[in-house]
């Protein structure tokens, strides 16, 4: 049977091994996006609105961290979580939780940097009104995050795209253990090296479909939100 037909069969018949891998991939990447958003969005907004010594340097570093190599993040998180590392007692290495931590570290700078830009742009539009209404610093941050929510979806999508597509970090801290820490990208790398192309291609198709679906859903959400909230 041709390779591409076998791949399609795996997808269409909802092969249990493939489903398990897809499920874990989604859990890890979406959890990482959620955690990174909880940290990155408020931090980005804070950076956009609060002036302090060294702010420019922080922005430069943050922007630079957007291009952080996944393997370096994987190595750092590995060193932190390894038995001899400062967080070794938590026993997280080679677990899905460690993969979530690594992906969170990887994408938090992306979400924070894009949030900073969005909020800073919005602030130039809103500053007079909010000043005139005597809105305090906390109120400004929450208002700008809320009013910039549709643009911030793009930041979250960028984070999700990066998390779902990376292989280096999750491979190092997850170990690619079958049935436990194997996700789509690590499985694709492994199956390709083993020569099992149908599974690799099937996973590739699912990965692409997932990224497209998530982006389409976010796009639809954004358009609907703009229509109803202005």
């Amino acid at each position: 049977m041709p390779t591409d037909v076998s791949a399609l069969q795996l997808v269409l018949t909802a092969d249990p091994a493939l489903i398990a891998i897809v499920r874990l991939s989604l859990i890890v990447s979406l959890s990482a996006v959620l955690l990174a958003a909880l940290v990155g969005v408020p931090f980005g907004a804070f950076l956009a609105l609060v002036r302090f010594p060294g702010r420019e340097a922080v922005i430069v570093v943050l922007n630079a961290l957007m291009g952080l190599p996944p393997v370096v993040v994987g190595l750092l998180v590995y060193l932190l979580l390894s038995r001899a590392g400062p967080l070794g007692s938590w026993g997280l290495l080679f677990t899905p939780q460690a993969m979530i931590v690594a992906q969170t570290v990887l994408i938090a700078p992306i979400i924070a940097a894009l949030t900073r830009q969005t909020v800073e742009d919005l602030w130039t539009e809103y500053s007079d009104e909010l000043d005139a209404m005597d809105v305090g610093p906390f109120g400004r941050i929450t208002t700008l995050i809320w009013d910039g929510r549709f643009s911030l979806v793009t930041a979250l999508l960028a984070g999700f795209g990066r998390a779902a597509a990376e292989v280096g970090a999750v491979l190092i801290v997850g170990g690619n253990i079958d049935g436990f820490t194997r996700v789509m990208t690590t499985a694709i790398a492994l199956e390709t090296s083993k020569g099992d192309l149908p599974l690799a291609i099937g996973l590739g198709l699912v990965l692409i479909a997932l990224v497209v679906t998530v982006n389409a859903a976010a796009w639809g959400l954004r358009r609907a939100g703009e229509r109803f909230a202005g």
Partner: protein
Amino acid sequence: MRAPVTDLPIVLEEVSFASGGVTILDRVSLAFAAGAPAVLIGPNGAGKTTLLRLLMGLAAPVRGRVTWGGREQAASTHRAIVFQRPTMLRRSAAGNIRYALAAAGVPRARRAASAVELCALVGLTGLERRPARKLSGGEQQRLALARALAKEPQILLLDEPTASLDPAATKAIEDVIRKVAASGIKVVMSTHDLGEAKRLAGEIVLVHRGRVIESGSADAFFSAPKTEEARRFAAGELLV
């Protein structure tokens, strides 16, 4: 019993303002007390907007001083401003007003009812749930007025509130301004529309090239202007 705090009169003493090395206001001295609307008139770039920002406390003079009710430092609790191009928050019309009510410290339980009342005051009944950014220019100006009134200000500052609006929208805004002024709120507004100044002003301040050319009662200004510039402006000539 302590007298209620008031921001009136607002007094500017020899106030100058500059930005980027350009003098925008030059030794302006004025006083705004309770009473009929004061209208700042003058051509574009005369310094009217900067004057309103100083009155609001959004800008600080580089020389001279501004006092509100005799105080140099006065929180803007009793003042509200509507900008020439107000920014609508991304929520419904009523949501915008509720936001302003919350910022003004109005308890949550009273906000919904107050928002409906304010919408009615500015003629936006029926549009409460419409996204603010989807309203027309005139409706957005009225919403901005309602949002400013949410503060229950003593002084309402309006920066060219009818600029680029059609006659019907202009009339709707002017009607609200009359209602607001009749309720005892001191209105200080800018315009370069002489007709609007005649229709609304109790006092007139003619500003040109950052200086106050003439100020006083609107009747005196239009019937017997004291300066050549005022005479020309009142006659509808262009001041350049």
